[in-house]
């Protein structure tokens, strides 16, 4: 529960952000060497809070790095928009990771891509099939590929040091993928995700159902991948070389993209029901997506359909989550896809609405054929999902097998940052929608911030935790996001290789469940996950904010046969 207080006193409630149009501070630090060496420059930020004297020249304690820095742009092939690869059972896909040239808002950058595409190739396969991906690393950093959400064999999960060695530059690795669950999944690196994923290494896997009429009817299917990137007039803002910067809140970008572009556009006919497959691949940004007021219902989450379709006004999607939504465009007009949030000016203590335009859907006069409008208005019940979940209801009231507290420890942060954090404690927003403290965030590195998963029963922290389960177990994990930590923040918690239900949040039973692999844990909330343990091996669970992961927010668990 968020709050339970005497009525005469206070009631607690949740709410942070930064203006999308930020001032450009490139070259602000006049003491820096502006020669050929890569040097730090302050990221663009809106100065809503007065700065303490003497802090404007501060830079992160880690050195700057930017893959491809100093190289000739013309050396690199231009990245192409993503293509769909329909794979049959037993097919092989050859795919590499490489440096590419990408154009964003008319400006060219050296970035990364799978298969030379942005997003990476969309792998489409039937549920129950198996395919091979022959992967080659052609970037200048070691990497692996993690197949997010797939309950595949452990040895192909892509976690360095756990399931495989890193794939070094020029080397290859063969991944065998299997698709036991229908839905939308994605793949991405599991090494320095803050860099590689941010620069474009991500792609989708769409697993089609083998059953007839698995979903309700739709006129077309469209994958949408949401991301952001931090750039200024001089180019990409460098990353930390030995550890990530932005360790407190994660790297929020100032340019938001859909499918890798800033001007996404889709033309549809009047009356079309469009099935959107939504994936959030941003390092840290949670989106609140609105489709211009069009009628919309959520059909499925990460790993399954919901028990029933549910009409919604917006979609809250955290990093690494996926949702399938059906949207009905019944009016001939332009619909804007927006990220609609409420930022917080902590210095002035006020909320301010912010709307980021992400794309446009233009509905023409031609009528959709066939017309599914009359079917769309009914929220379908999915008895297959209800029946599957029914087998697990006996465990809903069990005591937690594990109690996890989300917290953070810091060391050697600049004193002024610590002071500012200690001042601003009156209201801690449950969700951070934007970078509310860009200077402090930028200066915090993974060497100074340790994000912690604390096992309350054993006292073990993060990678000192290795839970032991067996195939067939049904494990309840209770997760509490401590609002009294130094810098509380929402965390998208991800479990590899298994699926789970969110049975309860803040003491309230979940009335409409879907199987998931990633779940938002807001600040101050207690969330209960029920894990269906089916997949043997050693696996990871972690916060999917890239900078938090690389600042230690992970644990392991082993599943025995």
């Amino acid at each position: 529960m968020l709050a339970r207080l005497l009525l005469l006193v206070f009631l607690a409630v949740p709410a942070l952000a930064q203006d999308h149009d930020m001032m450009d501070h490139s070259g602000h630090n006049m003491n820096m060497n502006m020669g050929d060496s890569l040097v730090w420059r302050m990221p663009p930020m809106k100065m809503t809070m007065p700065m303490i004297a003497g802090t404007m020249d501060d830079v992160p304690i880690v050195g700057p790095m930017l893959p491809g820095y100093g190289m000739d742009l013309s050396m690199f092939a231009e990245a192409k928009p993503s293509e769909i690869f329909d794979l049959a059972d037993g097919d092989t896909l050859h795919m590499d990771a490489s440096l590419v040239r990408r154009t964003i808002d008319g400006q060219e950058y050296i970035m990364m891509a799978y298969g030379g595409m942005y997003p990476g190739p969309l792998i489409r396969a039937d549920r129950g099939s198996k395919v091979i991906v022959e992967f080659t690393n052609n970037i200048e950093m070691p990497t692996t590929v993690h197949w997010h959400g797939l309950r595949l064999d452990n040895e192909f999960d892509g976690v360095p040091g756990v399931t495989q060695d890193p794939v070094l530059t020029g080397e290859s690795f063969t991944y065998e993928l299997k698709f036991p669950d229908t839905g939308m999944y994605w793949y991405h690196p599991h090494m320095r995700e803050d860099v590689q994923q941010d620069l474009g290494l991500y792609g989708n896997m769409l697993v089609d159902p083998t059953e007839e009429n698995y979903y309700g009817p739709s006129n077309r299917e469209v994958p949408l991948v949401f991301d952001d990137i931090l750039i200024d007039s001089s180019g990409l803002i460098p990353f930390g070389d030995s550890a990530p910067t932005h360790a407190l809140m994660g790297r929020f970008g100032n340019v938001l993209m859909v499918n890798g572009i800033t001007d996404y556009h889709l033309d549809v006919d009047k009356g079309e029901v469009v099935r959107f497959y939504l994936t959030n691949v941003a390092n840290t940004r949670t989106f609140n997506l609105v489709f211009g007021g069009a009628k919309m219902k959520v059909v499925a989450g990460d790993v399954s359909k919901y028990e029933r379709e549910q009409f919604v006004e917006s979609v809250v999607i955290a990093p690494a989550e996926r949702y399938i939504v059906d949207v009905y465009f019944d009016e001939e007009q332009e619909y804007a896809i927006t990220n609609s949030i409420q930022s917080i000016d902590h210095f002035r203590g006020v909320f301010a609405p912010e709307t980021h335009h992400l794309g446009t859907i233009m509905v023409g006069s031609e009528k959709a054929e066939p017309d599914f409008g009359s079917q769309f208005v009914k929220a379908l019940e999915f008895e297959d999902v209800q029946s599957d979940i029914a087998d697990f209801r006996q465990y809903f009231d069990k005591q937690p097998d594990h109690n996890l507290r989300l917290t953070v420890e810091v060391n050697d942060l600049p004193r002024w940052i610590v002071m500012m954090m200690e001042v601003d404690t009156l209201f801690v927003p449950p969700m951070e929608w934007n970078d509310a403290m860009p200077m402090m965030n930028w200066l915090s590195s993974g060497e100074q911030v340790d994000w912690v998963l604390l096992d309350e029963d054993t006292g073990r922290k993060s990678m000192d935790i290795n839970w032991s389960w067996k195939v067939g177990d049904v494990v309840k994990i209770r997760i509490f996001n401590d609002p009294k930590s130094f810098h509380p923040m929402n965390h998208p918690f991800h479990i590899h290789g298994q699926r789970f239900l969110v049975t309860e949040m803040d003491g309230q039973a979940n009335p409409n469940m879907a199987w998931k692999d990633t779940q938002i844990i807001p600040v101050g909330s207690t969330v209960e996950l029920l894990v269906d343990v089916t997949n043997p091996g050693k696996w990871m669970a972690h916060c999917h904010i890239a900078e938090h992961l690389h600042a230690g927010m992970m644990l392991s668990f082993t599943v025995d046969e």
Partner: protein
Amino acid sequence: MAKGIGEVTYASSPFGVAISATGTYVVSLNLSMENVTLDDGSSLVAWVTTPQLDQIKPLGRFSEELRVDGQTDWNKFLLVVTLEPASGDLGDIWSGPIVARGMSRSGLMHTMAGHGPFETEPCAVYGY
């Protein structure tokens, strides 16, 4: 002495956290009172309002068990319990005396100017 408790939780959402199309949190409100003696013909009514009192919405009359539920999607809000007639239209604003009130934690948020290094006197003096 009469007292009350307000419980604030997220409204039900398939995404875990309930957010409106304008980005505000959507919360469920559950109020309860105890040690209350009401005269015949009187009832307790709960209202939700902004701290500036520029928008007011009735949540409803407390039940015989002295409980009432409601919902709001305002960023900052104040819950007010008033003594009203036991029947009839509640109207747009309370007419009876206020018997209890509570501010959302977000409502406590105010300017940092004057705090920490800038503080000239503590907010607690003013009830924050």
